[in-house]
Each structure stands twice: as C-alpha cells, then as structure tokens.
C-alpha cells in the first residue's frame, strides 16, 4: 500500500510552516525521481551524479544560500524560529543521500553561527556570503576540537584539545596548526571553519578561505561512508586571518556544537527514513518458512517494530532540539546553557537511535542488507561515519562529561 514516510513517523508538524512543507514535498519528489528510483545508475556513476545532484539542489533550488539574510542574496532563513524548517529540508536531502545532507549540514552549522539573528556577524558574513550566495558550488569544512597527541599540552574546550592556535599579528591573527582532522570535506573545502585558541587558551572560531596562503592539505582519506565528502588533514602555517573573521568566544564554539548536533541529527534521521522505506519494501515481499511474509512473523515483526521505534524517537528528538533553539521566547536562545546541553545529550541519542535502527533492520535483510545493490548498507556506513566524527574522540565520554557538568556541576576540567 502506498504510504508517505513523513506521515508515518509523527512529529510536531505545526512547527513546520506551509512554505517549508511545500519545499520539502518538492525535495521529496526530486529525491524519488532523481536518486531513489534510479539508485543503480546513481551508484554506478556516484561521483559525477553526486556533483550534478548537489548542484541542482544547491544552486538551482537555492539551498546553498538559504540561511543568509536577504541583503546578502540569501533566502532569509537566518532567524532562529526557522530552525525546524532547516531541519525538515536537511532531512529530505539526506533521505536521498546522506552525503548531500552532510555537506549542507556543515555549511548551515558554520554559517548559522555568523548569520543567525540577533547576532549577525557582518564581517564574517561579508567573507562567506558572497561565496555561498553566488552561482558556484561551494563546500564548507569544519575543524572541531577533538583529540590531542601524547606529550603535548593543548588548550581545552570543555576537555577537548584544541590543535589550532591563533596569535595576534598585523591587522588580525596568524593561524597555525599541523595535520588537523576536519569532521569532513577537508579535501574539497572552499571555506574552513576552524576552532582555535588564542595564547590565553581562549577558544574561538576562525573563518578562513581555503585559498589563503599557508594552507596545505594532506592526502585524501578513504573513509567508511560519506564517500563524496572527501576529507583530508589540514595544516595551517601562519595563515593570515583578519580579526573580523574570528569569533573569539567560547559561546560561539558551544553554538557551533549545538548546530552540528542538530543538523547532523537531521541528516541521520533523513537517511533512516529512506532505510525504513527499503526495509519496508523488503518486509512486504520477503517470504520466510516457505510460506508467510517476513513481516507477519511475530519475531521479525518485533524487530521491525524496534526499528520504527528508534527512528520515531530520533525524529522527535531532532525536532525537539530545533524547538529549543527556535522558541527564543521560551528558552532564550543560545545564551541559555540548557540549549547546548540538550543538543549534546539528544544529539548523541539521535545518532545512537539511528544506528540502532539500521543495525537491527539489516539483521532482517540478511545478505540483501549487506549487498550494495539494496543500498541499505550505504545508509549504515554513512550514519556510522557521522556518529564517529561527532564524537571527536573517546566515544560518548566528552558529551557525558558535558551533561554531568550541567546537571551535577561536576568539576571535570
């Protein structure tokens, strides 16, 4: 029976406006037509078609510029109450391909810190908006704090070692750091967002054009999933960064984490929704025990149920984070520490739920789950990649410590 996957999984629809519903429906149909119903062709010529599809939604539909204020040529989705709209769009893109969603998620997260009202940072917008609102496809890469190296003492952001440093230089800063691993897109980025620390150890975010002098990229990294989001380690050797291109406070870093958790959560949920469609198709057709449909076997049905539960929960959690951020009149915006904590805590759960859902669903698909032909395995690899990069290092520990700091005032630094 025909069904609409978005209708099946309940979410607070009233948080999404009509305009977004219309856009989302268009993206949904575009995804079906251009990607989902042509999966084999898409898989065979992945790199070329990925680029073509990316161009079509980013430039033709205009998602690349969506988050910028209208005066920069953007679509004006730069108010916090628009957050659920961005989540909806990212979910639809990721249902088609998590890589497409991931690239947009990084762009939106980095841009949001600078472009969202009420804290629009004009100088940063002047740097990145012309690139992202233009007619060329641009890619954003983000370098978060993460892992330090033995015998090196690093400045820390809530325990997380910061590898990039800025020091005051003429009319700005000099940025340095060697072999730092971005969370994605390092090999192909046009803009880097670099979490860095000043000589006092204060964290901030430097916005750097990738063609700036002194930036070098390591070899392309082969990775589990997100095949098109080519990554590479990045080194900065005394890269000049104008002072206006650095947002120098740890609230900005917290905000960046919040956006990443939200947007990458939306990406994983989008991928899961398509995984659900694949699994449902399997369950509707696979016969076991030589007679009944797999979905009518109580044991298999209970696993199918667990998959739906995990996806349903993840979807609700994504919308809830967006609501915390978007309802400034209730929650007060990013200044309220509860927002960062909720994004971290629920963001972690969203990734866990998403991966659990796919892991369990693959059980029921057996070899078909493992074969590239069915595409389930791609969602599995993509979501796992997102989960791991979001951890930074040490699995869920950094986030657990953030949560303990918030709820128990644990002194962990």
């Amino acid at each position, binding site marked *: 029976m025909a069904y609409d996957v978005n209708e099946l999984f309940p979410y607070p629809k009233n948080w999404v406006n009509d305009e977004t519903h219309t856009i989302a429906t268009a993206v949904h149909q575009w995804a079906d037509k251009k990607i989902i119903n042509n999966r084999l062709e898409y898989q065979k010529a992945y790199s070329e078609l990925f680029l073509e599809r990316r161009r079509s939604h980013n430039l033709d539909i205009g998602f690349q510029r969506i988050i910028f204020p209208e005066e920069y040529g953007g679509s004006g989705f730069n108010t916090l109450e628009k957050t659920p709209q961005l989540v909806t769009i990212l979910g639809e893109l990721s249902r088609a391909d998590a890589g497409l969603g991931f690239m947009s998620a990084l762009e939106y997260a980095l841009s949001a810190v600078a472009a969202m009202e009420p804290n629009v940072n004009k100088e940063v917008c002047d740097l990145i908006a012309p690139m992202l609102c233009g007619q060329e496809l641009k890619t954003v890469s983000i370098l978060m704090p993460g892992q330090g190296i033995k015998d090196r003492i690093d400045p820390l952001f809530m325990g997380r070692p910061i590898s990039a440093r800025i020091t005051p230089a003429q009319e700005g800063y000099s940025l340095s750091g060697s072999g730092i691993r971005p969370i994605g897109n390092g090999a192909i980025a046009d803009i880097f967002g670099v979490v860095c620390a000043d000589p006092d150890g204060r964290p901030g975010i430097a916005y750097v054009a990738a063609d700036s002098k002194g930036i070098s990229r390591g070899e392309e990294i082969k990775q589990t999933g997100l095949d098109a989001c080519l990554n590479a380690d990045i080194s900065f050797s005394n890269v000049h960064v104008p002072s206006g291109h650095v947002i120098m406070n740890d609230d900005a870093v917290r905000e960046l984490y919040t956006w990443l958790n939200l947007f990458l959560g939306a990406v994983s949920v989008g991928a899961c929704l398509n995984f659900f469609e694949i699994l449902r198709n399997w369950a509707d057709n696979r016969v*076991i025990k*030589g007679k009944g449909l797999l979905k009518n076997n109580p044991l298999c049905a209970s696993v199918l149920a667990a998959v739906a539960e995990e996806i349903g929960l993840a979807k609700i959690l994504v919308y809830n984070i967006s609501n915390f951020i978007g309802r400034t009149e209730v929650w007060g915006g990013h200044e309220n520490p509860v927002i960062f904590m909720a994004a971290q805590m629920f963001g972690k759960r969203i990734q866990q739920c998403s991966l659990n859902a796919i892991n369990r669903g*693959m059980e029921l698909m057996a*070899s078909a789950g493992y*074969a590239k*032909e069915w595409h389930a395995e791609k969602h599995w690899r993509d979501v*796992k990649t997102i989960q791991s990069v979001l*951890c930074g290092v*040490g699995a869920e520990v*950094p986030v657990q410590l953030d949560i303990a700091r918030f709820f128990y005032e644990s002194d962990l630094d």
Partner: protein
Amino acid sequence: MKSIDDFSRPLNNVSPMERPFRKVLRRVVDDEIMPHRRKYDEDWENHEYIEPVIHKLCVGLGIQKALFPQEYGGWSLGQSDYMMALAYCIAEEVGRGDSALSLSSICSLWPVCTFLIPPLVNMDLARELAPMFTGEALCIGCQAMTEPQGGSDIENMDLIKGKTITTTARQDGDHWVINGHKLWPTNSGGIATIFGVPCTTRPGSEDPNDFAYIMVPADTEGVTQSPPYAKAGMAADKNGDIWFENARVPLSYRIHGPGKDALAFKGLIYMGQLGSVGFAVGALMNVYEILYEFASTRTFGNRLLKENDAIAGILGDIAGSIDICRVLAYEVVRLGDDRNKPWGNPIYSEETIAKSRNIKEFICDKAVDVCGKAMDILGTHGSDRAWDVEKHWRDLKMVQLWLGGKQLCQMEKARYYFNCTTL
C-alpha cells in the same frame, strides 16, 4: 606489556601442533596480510592482492589438504581430537588480519567436512577428490546452500526439513543431474573449483531421505557462475550466483546417501558457527591492538585516553568482552572436539548445534558493538580506513548476519531450551 596473547583460553585443551602453527600463521598475517589489507576493498573484483595470500594459506601452508586422509596426501585432521581447535586457531589468527580472507581459506574445506569427519566418512569420495585438494594447484571449495527464496529456511532443517529447497537432483543412469539456482556462497563469484550442493531428490518433501548433498566440480558442463557481487565489506570473499542446468556428475559424488546426507549437512552448520566465532574473535583481538596504540598516543583533557577514567571504563569493557568472547569461542571448540568422547555429541547433534548457535550469536552481537564503540573512541579517525577498525566493523556485521541470521539463532535456542514444538 599486555598483548593479544594474554586473552584467556584453555591451555590444557590445545594441541601440541597448535603452538608452532599459530606462530607461522601470525608471521604470514603480520608480513603478508597486514601491510596490504587496505588495498583489499578495491581488489574485490580482481583479487590481485588477495588471491596470492589465499594461495599461500591454502596451498603453501597446506590448509586445503588438512582434512584428507594421510594415505591420500592429507593430514587426516578429521580424525584428530584437536581438529576443531586447529580449525579455530586458523580462523582466529587469519581473522585477526582479515576475516574474509580467513573465511575464504577455511570455507574451501567446508563442503568436504561432510564426508571427512568421523563418523560420517566416505573414503571412496575422499580418494576420488583428494588429487584436487592435495596438489600444488589452488582448489577452492564452495558450500552452495543459499537459494533466492531464502538461506535461513534451508538451514532450518529441524523445522523446514529441506521442504523449500528448489535445487533438484535426478538420477539418470550412473549420474546425478542437477538443476537449480544458488546464490551468495563464499568462494563463488567465479573462483570456485568445486561446489557442495544441498539439493532435493523430491521437491517439496520433508523426508530427510530426500535431502541430498552432492559434490559438483565447477567445470562440469551446465554450471555457470556470475561475477562477484559488490558488498559493504568482506572483499576477500567473492559471492555470486551459480546456475546448475542439467549438470551431470557421477552417482558417487553424493556424499553418503539418504538420511546421512541430512545429518552431515547439519554438521556443517556447527562448522559454520565454529569458523564464525574464530573470525569474530580474531578481528576483535586486532581491534584491541589498534585501540591500545590509539589510546596510548592520543589525549583528551591532556591525558592519554587510556588514563581518562571514563574512557578507560569503556576500554576495560571492550577488553573484558573480548576475553569473555574468546573463552566462549573455545567452548564451541570443545563441543566439536569432544565429539568422539563418551560425554560428547556428534557435531550434527541438536545440543551441539543449539549451543554453538547461541555462542555465535552472542559473540557476533558483542563483536559488532565493540567495533562500533571502538570507532567512536577513535572519533574523527574511526571512519578512516587507515586505522582498520572500521574494516572489522563492516566485516563482522556480515558474520552476524549469515548462517540464517540472528532470528534463526533465537529460534534454535528457544526450541532447544524450551522444547518449543511449533516455531
């Protein structure tokens, strides 16, 4: 400093041959697999790097002849009380380097287990096929069981009793004529030399006497193999379709005959579980090695990861799980190696199959969890193929899913422990 050799195993139950053999295997893995394994993913179709290592293991080290009787050029391992321990040792050691390579090498012998492990021995067939397996040429065996309509049903012998098998064997003079379509078996995808084919002499029958297991050389007229499928991992194992269209083999290629074929096939299920736990534990031991290095060189909060109490908690759980998995894996070994002891059971017994399925399921669930957690500990490096943890994560998911998957394991356990009669 601790190493993988500190994980527990029952030393009183280890063959004297195992120690030197393990050493040789470890050297092959360290020198010839580890340095190249990152190329395997791209080598899934051609096996340019993979095939020479399979050759080395199967021909060079002699794995492919191990089960054949000494008088026919083999090692008579099937007669040994340490057969399962040695098979496990190979699965684990090679699995540490690459579980699919381990799978491919060991599975070569899977079909011949049906007639080389007492009490179900067919010496005539052993003599007939020994030249293939004991020579200098690579001989790749393939246990072609799964069919398009489902693999689990065929393995679910106690309930389905072979009723859903559509591959048929018809007697025509002094030949069997085989017709049918199999898919997914390890060592298919164009590389098999000989197939072991579960089939039926009377489609739709539930009578074990109508179940037949027939050896079919791959160059038999009427046998076609597809190219390999693209998969999420396990590149060293080729899987594809096989079509049998009036493929004729001598009557003597049926392993035993009515009734006994079905028993021997059930024994294969045990052998599959034994290999699976070996691949899984071997890979987990490598995950431990990688984590050890990573956690000893990377920091969080300016302390080594392994010295951070919370991260150490996870590392401790991981090492503890690996240790417990290994102990359990040796219980699967024991179940098989006790087959000739007064207190033991044949490998096709209900008890051995149910208990080995239980342990396989437990270990695989843990293995998938551990690998996933290890990737998260590596964080931005977890999905980096250069660290190899993600490779084990991709590979072990398949070990969890094959052989009828988790649900069949659950059903077998329930049937055995609760005497369920209608599942």
